[in-house]
């Protein structure tokens, strides 16, 4: 081959490669671990798996929506319940991925862990095209969850004080049954009636099942619902005390916190006296 042709061939290839870079950058629209998701691929998956509830515009007005008690997420409004980011900010790709993985406890959103990882990241990339907010706002900065300190009775008792001081009982009730004085009038941001979590009847939360998830729930708030963020009013060490206490309210769920609490006389009496009734969403709870 003649030198001249090689040169121009290399030049051509170089230009071709460079011109493709923007396309490559735009195509990588979601990133979770080693997976990259693309909205085009996600679009077909959405219209196969998701639109029946979430609607063809993604606004939560799917065919099934009128029959669902907890309404499907409105992706156009882009207010998300389960985040690791502060209240009012967009979730990270990881948050969205975890949400699809777990599903939403006590709602009609199932776990989509049956889909391959690539499908799930593609779906997330597509969901991010449904609202103009993703163009103007960046995802919030995830909160720092400090390492969990040692579980002690003192921690549980301090958490109990916080539960009183922060007035969690106003909605969740003194025993955490979800029957507090404000519980029966709660409405979500679409003016739909909603009940607070009933710790006694539940084992998993809307946004996960671990202590870290519980920590994140009350620090970031559950956007779109009455559950506010306590980020400005709870110090990180205190937040862990509250987590430990809340676990002792979950009397149907075996946890180290509950076991430790029951090993005390006071704790054993309290747990034994709890009547388990109602469902985690609070329906059936007498007001």
């Amino acid at each position, binding site marked *: 081959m003649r030198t001249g042709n090689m040169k121009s061939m290399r030049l051509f290839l170089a230009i071709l490669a460079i011109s493709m870079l923007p396309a490559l950058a735009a195509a990588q629209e979601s990133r979770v671990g080693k997976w990259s998701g693309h909205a085009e691929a996600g679009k077909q998956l959405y219209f196969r798996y998701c639109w029946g509830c979430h609607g063809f515009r993604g606004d939560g007005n799917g065919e099934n929506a009128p029959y669902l008690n907890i309404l499907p997420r409105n992706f156009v409004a882009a207010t998300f319940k389960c985040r690791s980011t502060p209240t009012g900010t967009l979730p990270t790709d990881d948050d969205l991925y975890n949400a699809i993985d777990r599903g939403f406890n006590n709602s009609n959103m199932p776990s989509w862990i049956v889909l391959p990882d690539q499908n799930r990241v593609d779906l997330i990339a597509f969901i991010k095209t449904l609202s103009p907010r993703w163009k103007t706002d960046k995802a919030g900065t995830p909160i720092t969850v400090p390492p969990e300190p040692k579980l002690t009775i003192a921690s549980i008792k301090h958490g109990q004080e916080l539960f009183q001081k922060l007035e969690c009982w106003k909605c969740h009730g003194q025993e955490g049954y979800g029957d507090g004085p404000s519980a029966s009038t709660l409405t979500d941001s679409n003016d739909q009636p909603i009940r607070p979590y009933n710790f006694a009847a539940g084992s998993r939360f809307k946004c996960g099942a671990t202590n870290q998830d519980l920590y994140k729930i009350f620090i970031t708030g559950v956007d779109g619902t009455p559950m506010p963020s306590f980020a400005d*009013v709870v110090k990180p060490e205190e937040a862990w005390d509250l987590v430990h206490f809340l676990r002792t309210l979950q009397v149907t769920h075996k946890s180290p916190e509950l076991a430790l609490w029951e090993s005390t006389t006071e704790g054993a009496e309290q747990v034994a006296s709890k009547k388990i009734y109602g469902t985690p969403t609070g329906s059936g709870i007498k007001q």
Partner: protein
Amino acid sequence: MRMNPIHAAGLAVLAAWAIVMYAAPNGGTISGTVTYEGTPAKAKPIDMSKEPSCAKQHATPISTETVVTGANNALENVVVYVSAGAPDQGAPSQPVKVDQKGCQYIPHVLAFQVNQTLEITNDDQTSHNIHPLPKVNREWNKSQPPGSPPITDKYDKAEFIPVKCNIHPWMHGNFAVLKNSHFAITEGGGNFALPNLPPGKYTIAAWHESYGDQTQEVTISGSETKSVNFVFKAKSY
């Protein structure tokens, strides 16, 4: 060098006009009254028995504030503002404040500008959660126990935003986030005044949380006061 007398006269006229237009501090004013016709629904007393610390702050229970009226059919809490004809303005540096006292938002309607700092305080002995419900701006929800520092935030888009407290379902407020500084909220007499308007053609809008919004076109040519009135149709429910 002597100036041509015609030129001098022209300059004098120009100077006078400039003084009147730009040196005069006030510009034109648009003022008027907002009233209603028909029979509004009666305001109902609010039962605060679920929150004794607030109930005892009101010797007689307060009434719902979604429609507040005054003498001669005056309509209070109407936000009157310039919706077109004035340029967008940067936010003033001082914050606007809303307080929670007696389980009420004071004031019931707060008007401020895009990107102006909003400061929310809790003067009650109970926790409140501040839950503004925008559709265009981002929605957040924060707990504010008694004795906490003020919560500050701001909105970057113009919008009328209802505000509620989930713990106390009777608490309702409104934020009016506006693009310029020409706004007023009607009080007992239903009156409003929008001063300092340079000459131009303006669209004046009036918004009420229950009765909707209306607009009128007004032209200001100098420093006159133009009168504009709004009449809202009351709903009986």
